[in-house]
């Protein structure tokens, strides 16, 4: 499943490291800091920022789906890993875990885009974001290349 070529494995590991940082860290960045008794408004605001403004850079704001989309294409072999090389890691359970969690979150993301959300949606979103975050961490651990 994983390529035998060491350069490709390094490239996959680097990609997983970036995913863990860009998506895994920031998709649950603010919600992770919430106090247990934080009011609904604060929870919703934190979730909104995490899911709809996951990354900011010179090219603007990216939401969680934008960040995932580009990585997903590489991990599922739909876009090249390096130059013309494509690899598919679709069978990796850690990858499927992230993919499924992101799919489940799309409902919450749409709801947040549409306007204020109720407590149930926000709780679902917070749990879903944590699941994506943990999945990215597990994926990075799985693909990590041990250096001599």
């Amino acid at each position: 499943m994983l390529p035998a070529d060491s350069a490709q494995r390094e490239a996959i590991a680097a990609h997983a490291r970036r995913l863990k940082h860009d998506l895994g860290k920031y998709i649950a960045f603010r919600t992770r800091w919430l106090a247990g008794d934080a009011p609904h408004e604060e929870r919703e605001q934190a979730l909104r920022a995490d899911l709809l403004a996951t990354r900011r850079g010179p090219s603007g704001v990216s939401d969680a789906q934008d960040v995932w989309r580009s990585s997903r294409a590489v991990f599922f072999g739909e876009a090249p890993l390096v130059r013309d090389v494509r690899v598919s890691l679709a069978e990796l359970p850690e990858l499927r875990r992230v993919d499924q969690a992101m799919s489940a979150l799309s409902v919450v993301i749409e709801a947040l885009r549409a306007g204020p959300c109720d407590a149930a949606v926000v709780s679902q979103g917070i749990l879903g974001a944590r699941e994506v975050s943990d999945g990215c961490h597990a994926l990075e651990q799985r693909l990590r290349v041990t250096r001599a």
Partner: protein
Amino acid sequence: MAEILIVDDQDHYLDLCRRAISEHRYRGPARSWREAAEALGRARGAVDLVLLDVHFAIPAEELVGTVGDDGLEGLQRRQGLEILALLRARYPDLPVILMTSREDVVLEDVAAAGQEYTYFLDDDYVDARSLQAQIANILAAREGDISEGPIFWGRSLVMRQLRQRLKVLALGRLPVLLLGPTGTGKSLLARHHIHQRSGRRGQFVAVDLSTVPNELMSATLFGASRGAYTGATADRAGAFETADGGTLFLDEVGNLSADAQKMLLSVLQESVVVRLGEVRERSVDVKLVVATHEDLAERVAQGLFRADLYMRLNPAAAVRLPPLAERSIDLVQLLEFGVAQALRRPYLSGLVGDYCERNGLRRDALDVVVGEAAPARRQPTLTLLFPERSVRLLRAHTWPGNLREFAMVVENAALFAVSEMLALPSGERADVLAVRPKVVRDLLGPLPAEALRAAERSAERAEAPALDAGQLVVTLSPQDSLNKVAQETERQYFVHLYIEHRGDFAKMAIALLGDAEHARKVQLRFNQLGLKVRDMKELLG
């Protein structure tokens, strides 16, 4: 409450820290190395901790470091490490938390940046509680940092405040004036603290003005051209030029000749030096640190030091180092520190090493214990035991030579303890070297105890020394400068005068200066010499 600078290209951490860890004050976010350097410069040493993100999605022109095989994005993704390397070079002991876990960083990169005072998150996905705890731990450890290289700070409030003040003064452009009795470590502070923290890349140059003859002082400091004075056979750069871009430390600045005072004033005003015999001005950028054990204000009042130069030396921000006798709270830690420092000296470390080898003990460890007995041996390490009575003697001593005297006493104590065991093994525990009270008592003489005992004998005989007949007996041990010999002589002279006049400073003033009005001045000098009225009163009975 600590002052924390956040270096991050986004607002995340600042927002969250302000909300969730509100007990500290935050600056930033600095979004690049340039902004971080500016923020730290503005803070003038007030920042206690830096939170540094690793990934900086900022434009290429704002990045520091070189683009490698991984392209511009690679440099952005490790930008925090590049910033860390620059922080370490400029602020070597400023704690920095890298906002990532250790396992997410290529360790070679961090090793290059220097790992001391560099911390990682326990988990890449940090939350408020764990970050709060980590910040608290780092700050607490910092508080507990009682020594720094050869400098012993201790825990006393006065030294903590002094350290904080020096941290700020080191970064400023104004001169730093260090005051305090001889042996309190002014020169160590200048070299190992102020210069190190000044952010200056030039040399540290020290000139002890008490050792420079008056006629050579100007040339030594400002340089001279060939033929400028008899014996000037070649052009010569002065200390200011040598220290350009760095720090110049002038010890015993009260000894500056009148000519040198005038020239120094000009350098401080214009930032240029003119070598003797030349008219050409040379620009210099020097951090000036000056030190004296004298009361400079008093010298100004006496017309011995220029008032305008004194004002240029930044007296309002002068740092006064306390005499060792006022730092007794730290005596035990200071003993440990002193022994560790003494063991760096080749002779003692060789002796201790041989002793350890002979007795099957580790050469690389030595414990210092205060108490009546050393703890039961658990490991093959040597213990230097200071019994309570020995420590009481050390505490009672007035330490006129301050840290310098203390270092000598501790080194000798360790030396004699080893020598005694080598000569006469006690037959008991070979892993314990006791510093017996008798050894300490002997080491604390002959000064000032010897002088005091001599004075005591005179007092008992009710015969004050016949000073006017030139019969004052002065006991001197080798000193490292003429200035110190002079000071020691002066100190003993004061002791005799005090005894003779039964502690009456007005009478002492008449004897010394011909006018009882100068009693306060005499008392000030008395104190500067490390003499204590309390001790002397005991002597007078």
